[in-house]
C-alpha cells in the first residue's frame, strides 16, 4: 500500500541539471516543489574533495559516479527484427546518478549549436535538394530557432560561469573567437582558459591550413566568479580530473556549483534522495497527470500528488518513464506512427592519434574544456557536394583537447588478439608524454528504424521492462565520420605527428567501447504533435501538465556537445511556463 504524501505544486523526477533549473525557476515564483532523485546527495565539500576524486581507478575505471547496470540499464539490438540483449556492463556511454546527475561528471565543453543546426533539414534541402536525405532519414528541424534561443543561451552561460571568447558579437566578428558562430548578444562571462603547448600547436597548424581555430568554451571558471544567483565559483586549477569526476574546487559548472546551493535554502523546496520514480500517475481519462509513484531505499512505495510533473532524468530514462507510464503514443517503426521513443540518435566521436617524435607535453595538466576547435567542418560550413564520394548530411567540430590524461586510460594495451603486452607494452606506455589526439565530434542523423521502446523480456529491479535501444550507425553517418577523421589526420600530420591509429566509425556500433554519453531524442520537441512528444516549451502534447527536459528534445544529434543547449532549451521552456502556463494552465501551443 502506497503512502500518500501531501500534494505539491510540482514534482521533479531526477535532480540533475534540468531538475535544478526547474526547481529554481518555480520556487522563485513561490511554488511548492519536491524533487525526487534515485541516487545520493553529492556535495562538493564532502563528496568531491580533491583527495577523494583524484582517483582514476575508482571514478574513471570503476565508474564511481555512474549508475550501475544492476540499478538501471538498457537492452540493445541493431535491427527491429533482432532480439535485444541487455547491456550488462557500462560501455558506450556513462550516465551519472545522484544529485547533479550527468552534469556533475561531465567534461565541461560548453558549445552553442550553429544557427543552421536548428533548421538543418530545410536548410540542406534548400541548398542541396531533397535527394541528400535518404527516405529512411527522419531528421527534422528543431522546434526553436537560434535567434529565439539566444537570450537563453546567454542566461545559461552566465549561470554556469562559462569561460570563452566571443567570435561574433551582435554581428561583428571579434578576433580570437569563432568567426563561424551565430551572433551573440554578449561575450562569455569569463575569459578563455589558458592555453598549453599542445593546444597552441593545434591553433598554429589549423591557421596555417586556412582553418578558423578558436578556444573551446569551457564550463570551468577561468577566474573567481559569482553567478547571477549569487553562487561563487573558484578559479580552475587545471588538475585534469573533470570528465568522470566531480570537481572539488568549485570550478567546473555543475548543478552543485551554480544552482543547488540557492534552491536548497528556499522553504518552498524539498529534495528526497534515494527515491526512484517508478511511474507517472494519470487521471482515468489519461489526459492529466495527478502525480508520481516512487519507491524509497527501504522499498516502501509512496504517491506524491502534484499539479505539474517534470521529467528531468537523462535522455534514455526520460523516454523510459514516459513509456512505462503510458504518456504519449509509443513510436511504431513499422508504420512510422507514434512519437515516444522516435528519433533516437547517438553521436559519432572519432579521432586520429599521433606520436610526436622528439616532443614532450604535460598530459596530466588539463581541464575538460581546455581545447582549440575548428567549426569549418560542422553543419553547413563547408560545401557538402565538394566532399569526396557521395555527399552526406551532417558534420562536426574538430579539435585538440588537453583534458588531463590519467595513467590507466592512457596505457591501454588494446583489446582482443591485437592487444600488446610484455616489454612492447611497457615501451608503448612510455609514449604517454609525446602522444597527441585530434578528435572530431560527429553528429548523428535520425532514422526510421533507430528508436527506443520497452523490452519484452528483461526487467529492472522494480519489475518494469528495461528500455530497449534499436540502433546502428548508417552509411550517411559513417561517411561523415570518415570524412571528419580524414581532416583530423590531415591536421595532425601537419602538426608534425606520426599517425598511430584512427578511430572512425566504419563498422557496427560497439556497445562495449566508451565513445560519448551524448544520447538524443526519444521525447523530441516538435512544431506539431505528429513529429514529437513535447512542444518547444517542453510541454507534452498529450498531457499538458507533464513536461520533459533534456537532450531527449533534440530531433537528431548535433556535431557538438549538448549540455549548453539542454540548459538553454530548459530555460526557454521555464520562461514560457512562468509567463503563460502558471497564469492559465493548459496547452501552450495549439496542437
Amino acid at each position, binding site marked *: 500500500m502506497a503512502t500518500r504524501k501531501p500534494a505539491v505544486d510540482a514534482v521533479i523526477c531526477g535532480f540533475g541539471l534540468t531538475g535544478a533549473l526547474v526547481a529554481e525557476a518555480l520556487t522563485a515564483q513561490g511554488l511548492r516543489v519536491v524533487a525526487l532523485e534515485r541516487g545520493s546527495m553529492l556535495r562538493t565539500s564532502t563528496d568531491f574533495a*580533491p*583527495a577523494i576524486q*583524484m*582517483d*582514476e*581507478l575508482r571514478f574513471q*575505471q*570503476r565508474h564511481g559516479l555512474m549508475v*550501475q*547496470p*544492476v540499478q538501471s*540499464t538498457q537492452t*540493445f539490438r541493431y535491427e527491429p527484427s533482432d*532480439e535485444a*540483449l*541487455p*547491456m*550488462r*556492463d557500462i*560501455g558506450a556511454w556513462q550516465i551519472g546518478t545522484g544529485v547533479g546527475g550527468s552534469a556533475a561528471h561531465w567534461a565541461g565543453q560548453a558549445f552553442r549549436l550553429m544557427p543552421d543546426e536548428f533548421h538543418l533539414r530545410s536548410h540542406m534541402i534548400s541548398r542541396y535538394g531533397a535527394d541528400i536525405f535518404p527516405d529512411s532519414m527522419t531528421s527534422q528541424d528543431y522546434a526553436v530557432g537560434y535567434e529565439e534561443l539566444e537570450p537563453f543561451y546567454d542566461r545559461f552561460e552566465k549561470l554556469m560561469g562559462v569561460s570563452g571568447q566571443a567570435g561574433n558579437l551582435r554581428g561583428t566578428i571579434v578576433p580570437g573567437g569563432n568567426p563561424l558562430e551565430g551572433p551573440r548578444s554578449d561575450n562569455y562571462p569569463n575569459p578563455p582558459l*589558458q592555453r*598549453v*603547448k599542445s593546444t597552441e600547436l593545434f591553433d598554429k597548424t589549423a591557421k596555417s591550413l586556412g582553418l578558423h581555430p578558436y578556444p573551446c568554451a569551457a564550463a570551468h571558471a577561468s577566474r573567481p566568479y559569482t553567478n547571477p544567483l549569487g553562487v561563487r565559483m573558484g578559479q580552475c*586549477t*587545471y*588538475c*585534469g*580530473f573533470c570528465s568522470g569526476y566531480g570537481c572539488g*574546487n568549485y570550478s567546473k559548472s555543475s548543478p552543485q556549483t551554480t544552482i543547488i546551493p540557492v534552491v536548497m535554502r528556499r522553504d518552498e523546496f524539498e529534495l528526497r534522495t534515494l527515491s526512484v520514480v517508478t511511474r507517472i500517475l494519470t487521471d482515468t481519462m489519461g489526459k492529466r497527470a495527478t502525480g508520481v509513484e516512487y519507491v524509497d531505499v527501504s522499498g516502501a512505495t509512496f504517491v506524491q500528488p502534484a499539479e505539474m510533473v517534470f521529467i528531468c532524468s537523462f535522455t534514455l530514462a526520460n523516454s523510459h518513464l514516459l513509456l512505462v507510464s503510458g504518456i504519449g503514443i509509443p513510436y511504431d517503426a513499422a508504420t512510422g506512427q507514434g512519437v515516444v521513443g522516435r528519433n533516437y540518435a547517438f553521436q559519432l566521436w572519432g579521432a586520429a592519434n599521433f606520436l610526436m617524435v622528439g*616532443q*614532450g*607535453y*604535460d598530459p*596530466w*595538466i588539463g581541464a575538460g574544456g581546455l581545447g582549440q576547435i575548428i567549426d569549418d567542418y560542422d553543419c553547413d560550413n563547408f560545401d557538402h557536394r565538394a566532399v569526396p564520394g557521395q555527399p552526406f548530411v551532417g558534420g562536426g567540430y574538430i579539435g585538440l583537447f588537453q583534458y588531463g590524461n590519467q*595513467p*590507466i586510460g*592512457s*596505457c*591501454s*594495451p588494446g583489446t*582482443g*588478439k591485437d*592487444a600488446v*603486452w*610484455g*616489454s612492447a*607494452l*611497457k615501451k608503448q*606506455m*612510455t609514449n*604517454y*608524454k*609525446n602522444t597527441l589526439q585530434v578528435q572530431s565530434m560527429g553528429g548523428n542523423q535520425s532514422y526510421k528504424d533507430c528508436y527506443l521502446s520497452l523490452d519484452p*523480456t*528483461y526487467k529492472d529491479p522494480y519489475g518494469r521492462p528495461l528500455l530497449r535501444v534499436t540502433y546502428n550507425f548508417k552509411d550517411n553517418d559513417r561517411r561523415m565520420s570518415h570524412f571528419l577523421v580524414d581532416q583530423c589526420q590531415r591536421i595532425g600530420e601537419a602538426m608534425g605527428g606520426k599517425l598511430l591509429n584512427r578511430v572512425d566509425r566504419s*563498422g*557496427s556500433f560497439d*556497445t*562495449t567501447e566508451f565513445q560519448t554519453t551524448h544520447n538524443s531524442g526519444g521525447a523530441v520537441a516538435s512544431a506539431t504533435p505528429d513529429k514529437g512528444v513535447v512542444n518547444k516549451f517542453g510541454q507534452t502534447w498529450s498531457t499538458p501538465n507533464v513536461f520533459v527536459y533534456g537532450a531527449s528534445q533534440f530531433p537528431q544529434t548535433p556535431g557538438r556537445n549538448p549540455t549548453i543547449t539542454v540548459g538553454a532549451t530548459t530555460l526557454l521552456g521555464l520562461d514560457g511556463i512562468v509567463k503563460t502556463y502558471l497564469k492559465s494552465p493548459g496547452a501552450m501551443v495549439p496542437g
Partner: protein
Amino acid sequence: MTTGKKPSNGLSRRRLLRQAVATGAGPSRRTFIVGVPTVTIALAALSPIMAFALQPPRRLSESLPRFFTDDERAFVTSAVDRLLPADELGPGGVAANVPRFIDSQLAGPWGRGENRYVAGPVKDGPPTLGDQAVTPRATLYRTCIAALRLLPAGRSFVSADAAARDVFLKSLQQGEYESDQIQGKRFFAALLEDTVAGFMSDPSYGGNAGFAGWKLISYPAPHYDWTPYLKNDGRPLAMPVIGTFGPLDSYGLD
C-alpha cells in the same frame, strides 16, 4: 629500494617497533594495547618527528582483502611477470605488487560483479553487444586457472621459463585453449586489463609499488593545482611523486 627489503634474519629495530604499533582490526589490536607502554618508553627520548619517522606505517597490503589460493596466486604472478616484465625500462608488474592488487580487487564487490546486470535469460550475442556471461570476474579467474592447470602446458606454467610462458600466454590470447571450461580469451583480456590497472593505479590499492608504473611514464601523480606549470611545455618535473596517501614512505614498506 632499500626500504623495500625485509630483514633477512632476526628482527630489526624498525620491525619490532612496527609490530608494536601495528594498528587495525583483529589480533593486532591486542598487540597494540599491550605494546603501547613499551613503545612509549622506547620513543620517549626522541623528538616527536624522529619518533614518527621510526614508526613507518605497517605494510599496506596486509590490510587488503584476499581472494587467491596459493596456486592461483602463483599462476597469476607468473603471468603478470610476463605481461609486464622487469626489463631495461625498469621494474615489472611483480615488483610493483600487481598480483596483490588483483587479489584484493577480486575479493571485493567489483570482483564479485555486484555492479553488473545479471538477470536472465542469458544468451550469446555478437561481441559488440557486450559480455553476456553473468559469471563474476573472480569466478572467471578461479575456473579458468583450475581448468588450465589440468592441461600439460598449464600445469608447468608456473615453473616454466620466460619464453615458454610467453608461448602459453600468446596461445591463450589467440583463443587456442577455448573449451566449455576455459573462456581463455576472456580470461586473458581480464588478466591484461587488471595488470595494467594494478601497475598504474594509486598504490593505496596495493599495486604500483614504489610508484613503478607512474615512474615508467613520468606521470607525476595527481596534483591539486597545475596552474604554475601551464608553460612547462613538457620539461621534466623536479618534484617527488605523491599519491593519495602522500609520498612513498606513507604507503608502508611495500
